[in-house]
């Protein structure tokens, strides 16, 4: 982070807060837990780092140093010259912006001194990921991909076929995710399902551009969030996190392409290239 030190005002000395070793350990645990929830639910690295540091300082630490890796967080909390370091394994639990919002809100409340350590612990433990109704999601994703087919210039027959193909594919994806299958396998098989159904449009020549159905029905599998996070991480200086996210998103896309290729080979219908 480049900053001009010439123009910066004199650093204000914050009053030293005296906290016990147990309290310091406790605060470190809370802070790393907040960061962990954020990373598990798909926040970008800068947000994770910022929130963890702010929460730790708000609860009484002098400084917080956080190392973010692709599947673990390492946090050191300093207070009166003592260091406490703790590591947490991070498991991917799927993108959930609701959880990210809640952790941010708790941090802001702690910063305004509305919550103490115990309240923060209680609130973090109470957080339950909110999920939208799955059938509504299936409908909306079907509509989304159908809208993409309109944007690519398809007519209403193409719209209807894309809706059917991608809604069934989304249902399949949810079922696979529910059974905790590997995401790359999930994306590949979902792409196979979507392309096979969409291939019917090409085979029976439905609509003005039957090929568009094949292109639009797999768009529910674009790893948009990981890709955007990857580039913003790299822009904001978290190069290694950015690279690992970029690579994971590329592997997901490769899985999707494998599914498409397998379906085109099995049915003999070609829609791409």
């Amino acid at each position, binding site marked *: *982070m480049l*900053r001009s030190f010439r123009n910066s005002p004199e650093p204000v000395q914050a009053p030293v807060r005296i906290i016990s070793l147990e309290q310091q350990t406790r605060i470190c645990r809370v802070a790393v837990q907040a960061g962990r929830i954020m990373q598990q639910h*798909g*926040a*970008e690295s*800068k*947000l994770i780092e*910022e929130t963890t540091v*702010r929460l730790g300082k708000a609860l009484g630490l002098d400084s917080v140093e956080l190392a973010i890796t692709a599947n673990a967080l390492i946090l050191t909390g300093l207070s009166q010259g003592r260091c406490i370091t703790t590591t947490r394994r991070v498991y991917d639990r799927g*993108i*959930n*912006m*609701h*959880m*990210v*919002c809640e952790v*941010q*809100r708790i941090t*802001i409340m702690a910063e305004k001194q509305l919550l103490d350590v115990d309240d923060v612990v209680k609130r973090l433990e109470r957080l339950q*990921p*909110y*999920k*939208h109704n799955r059938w*509504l*999601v299936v409908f*909306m*994703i079907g*509509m*989304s*991909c159908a*809208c*993409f087919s*309109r*944007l*690519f210039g398809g007519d209403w027959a193409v719209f209807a076929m894309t809706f059917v193909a991608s809604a069934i594919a989304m249902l399949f994806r949810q079922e696979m995710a529910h059974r905790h299958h590997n995401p790359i396998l999930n994306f590949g098989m979902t792409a196979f399902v979507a392309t096979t159904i969409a291939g019917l449009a090409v085979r029976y020549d439905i609509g003005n551009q039957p090929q568009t159905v094949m*292109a*639009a029905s*797999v*768009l529910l599998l*674009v790893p*948009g*969030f990981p*890709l*955007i*996070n*990857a*580039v*913003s991480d790299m*822009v*904001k200086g978290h190069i290694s996190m950015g690279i690992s996210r970029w690579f994971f998103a590329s592997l997901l*896309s*490769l899985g*999707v*392409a*494998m599914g*498409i*290729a397998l379906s085109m080979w099995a049915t003999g219908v070609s829609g*791409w*290239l």
Partner: protein
Amino acid sequence: MIELLALLVEDALFSAVPAVGFAMVFNVPTRMLGFCAIGGAFAHSLRTLCIYWGVPLEWATLVASTSVGLIGVYWSRRYLIPRPVFTVASIIPMIPGSYAFTTMVGIISLYSNGFSEPLLATIIENGLRTMFILMALSFGLAIPSVVIYRGRPIV
């Protein structure tokens, strides 16, 4: 003029739906879904307008995503919500999904059908387009925190 307006309205309608749909996959809280719809509709029709005026696709994308990023600053400070909650869902309709998949399917068929120059050209062109659009999208979203809020948190 009327044609352009009709084009933009249609564009806005057909991109508001995907923005909300994908926002629901990311489990954006219900009361924020409306903002995702507005952001998605605004961004995609702004990009279409820029392309209509002759701006290249990547630069038009950068303009659209920068404006979503700036609007996101206002909303996030007002509702105390991290910015990616609105902004990423809003730019989802502009993500180059079919270019990315064309690149990957092309790589697979380069292996299975053998090398040919037109195929290699397709792969490289689509791959580069995917990369540049993605860079434009996320760099545009990052502009407020890179240029205005340097080192300070937005909320």
